[in-house]
C-alpha cells in the first residue's frame, strides 16, 4: 500500500464518505464496503420472529396459569360457601353414631306436610300401580274419591293446600282418568316445598344423607325419638334399621311417613310405593307406565304402546325427543337396576 497521507487535501468542513484525499485509502475503504455482511436481514427477521413467538408463548402460558388459578380459587371458595350454607356437622346428636362415614349434608327442623298429603302421594302411587295392573275403570272412581278426600283437609290447612286442591279439582274435571295423576307432579312439588308443618315423628330432625352410584341413597334420621337408618332407591326401600334393629320388609308399610320423607329429601323419583321392598322383583312395566303418566306423556289408564331402545323411544308410533328418551332410559335403569343392554328393547303393548 502506498503512503496515503496528504493532509493538505483534507478539509474539515468538506468531509465526504470514502474521500480521504488518498486514492489508495479510498480504494481500500471501497473494498471494505463491498465485503458481504456477516449477518443477513433474513436472519435478523427470523431472530425477531422467534423472540415474538417465545414472548407470545410465555405470556399464553402465564395467562393460562393465572386463569386456571383463578378458576381453582373460585371453585374452592364456591365449595366452601356451599358447605357453609348447607352443612352443619352433627356434634350433639346421638344418631351421629349411626354412620360416621356419611356426608352430613343437612341439619334441619323437619316440618313435614300433613299426613293427609303424604297419604295422598302414597294413594296416587297406588292408583298408578292398580291401573297398570289393568284395573282401569274402577280406579277412575277411586282416584276421584281419593282426591276429594285429600282436598278437604288440604283446603282447611293453608293456601298452598288450596292450590293443591284446585289442581286436583280442575284435573279431575278435565279428565276422570288422568286428572289426578297429571297433577300429581305438581302436587308432589307443593308437598315437597311445603315442609313447614310439624310432624312429631321426626322430633329431633337431624338428617345425614349419602348418594351411591347405583342410584340409591342412604340417610340417618331420628324417627320417633329413635335413630333410624334407611336406604332407598327408585323401587322403594332397600333396608330400614330402627334403633339398631332391621325392620322386616313385610312391615315397611308401617313406616310410610318415614319412607315418603326419605324420597322427598333425596329427590329420588319413587317408581313404586315408597314403602315397596326394593329387593323384590320389580314390575318394570308398571313403573315405566307410572313414569310416563307423571311426565304427562300419557293419561292415566290410557292404552298405549311404547318401545324403548338405547337410541330411540317410540310412544304410540311417535318418536320422542332425545332428552325425553334419555330420561326414560334412566327410569328403566332405576326400575331394572341396570341399564338397557346394547341392542335390547323394552316394549309395552304393541306398536301399530
Amino acid at each position: 500500500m502506498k503512503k496515503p497521507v496528504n493532509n493538505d487535501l483534507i478539509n474539515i468542513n468538506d468531509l465526504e464518505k470514502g474521500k480521504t484525499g488518498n486514492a489508495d485509502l479510498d480504494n481500500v475503504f471501497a473494498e471494505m464496503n463491498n465485503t458481504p455482511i456477516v449477518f443477513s436481514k433474513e436472519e435478523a427477521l427470523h431472530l425477531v420472529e422467534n423472540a415474538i413467538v417465545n414472548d407470545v408463548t410465555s405470556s399464553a402460558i402465564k395467562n393460562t396459569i393465572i386463569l386456571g388459578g383463578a378458576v381453582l380459587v373460585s371453585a374452592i371458595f364456591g365449595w366452601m360457601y356451599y358447605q357453609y350454607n348447607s352443612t352443619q356437622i352433627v356434634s350433639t346428636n346421638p344418631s351421629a353414631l349411626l354412620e360416621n362415614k356419611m356426608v352430613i349434608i343437612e341439619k334441619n327442623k323437619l316440618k313435614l306436610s300433613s299426613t293427609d298429603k303424604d297419604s295422598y302421594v302414597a294413594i296416587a302411587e297406588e292408583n298408578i300401580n292398580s291401573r297398570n295392573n289393568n284395573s282401569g275403570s274402577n280406579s277412575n272412581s277411586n282416584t276421584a274419591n281419593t282426591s276429594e278426600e285429600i282436598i278437604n283437609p288440604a283446603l282447611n290447612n293453608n293456601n298452598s293446600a288450596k292450590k293443591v286442591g284446585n289442581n286436583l279439582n280442575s284435573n279431575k274435571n278435565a279428565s276422570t282418568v288422568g286428572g289426578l295423576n297429571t297433577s300429581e307432579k305438581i302436587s308432589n312439588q307443593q308437598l315437597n316445598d311445603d315442609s313447614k308443618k310439624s310432624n312429631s315423628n321426626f322430633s329431633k330432625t337431624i338428617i345425614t344423607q349419602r348418594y351411591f352410584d347405583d342410584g340409591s341413597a342412604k340417610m340417618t334420621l331420628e324417627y320417633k325419638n329413635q335413630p333410624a337408618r334407611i336406604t332407598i332407591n327408585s323401587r322403594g326401600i332397600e333396608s330400614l334399621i330402627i334403633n339398631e334393629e332391621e325392620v322386616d320388609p313385610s312391615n315397611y308399610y308401617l313406616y310410610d311417613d318415614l319412607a315418603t320423607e326419605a324420597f322427598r329429601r333425596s329427590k329420588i323419583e319413587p317408581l313404586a310405593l315408597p314403602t315397596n321392598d326394593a329387593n323384590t322383583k320389580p314390575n318394570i312395566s308398571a313403573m315405566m307406565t307410572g313414569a310416563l303418566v307423571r311426565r304427562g306423556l300419557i293419561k292415566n289408564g290410557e292404552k298405549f304402546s311404547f318401545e324403548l331402545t338405547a337410541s330411540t323411544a317410540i310412544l304410540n308410533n311417535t318418536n320422542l325427543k332425545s332428552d325425553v328418551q334419555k330420561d326414560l332410559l334412566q327410569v328403566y335403569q332405576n326400575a331394572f337396576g341396570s341399564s338397557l343392554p346394547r341392542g335390547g328393547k323394552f316394549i309395552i303393548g304393541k306398536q301399530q
Partner: protein
Amino acid sequence: MSLYSPLHERLVRFVQTIVWDKEEARDIVSETILAAYEHFEKVKHHEAFLYYLFTIAKRKMNRRYVQQKRQSPWTDELNDKAEDTSPDALKQLQIKELKDAIAHLPEKYREPLVLFEFSGLTIKEIAEISNLTENGVKSRLVRARQQLSEILDGSLHEKAS
C-alpha cells in the same frame, strides 16, 4: 422491523468492522437486535431508534473488549495470504491491514470513523450517538484518517524492512 430494516446493513458493518471475529460479530449483532426488541418501549420517537440501536451495539462491543483484550488480526492464515500474490488475496490482505489499523486507533477516533466511512451515518447522527458536537465529530474524523494513514504507512515500512 420497519424501523430496523433500513438500519440493518449499517449496524452490521459497524460491528463487523470493529470486531474481527466473524462469529463474535454475529453474536453482537443478534444480541443488539434482541436487546433493542426487548426494550423497544423505551424508544419514545421513531427518529431516536437509530441512536438507540447503535448505542446498544457500542455497549455490547465495549463489554466484550473489556472482557477480552483486542486480538491481533494477524494469524497464520494471513501470513500465508501475505505470500500469495493473486488479486483476491491482495484485496483480502489490504482489508485485513485496514482492519488492523482501525483496531489500533484510539477508541475516540475509531468509532466516528467506522460510523462515518462504513456505516454511512451522517455527522449529525454520529454526534448524537457519541454525545459530541458536529464539529467535534468532524475533527475526530480528520484525526482518525490521519492516524489511520500513519499506521498503514508504518506497517508497510515495517514489512518492507
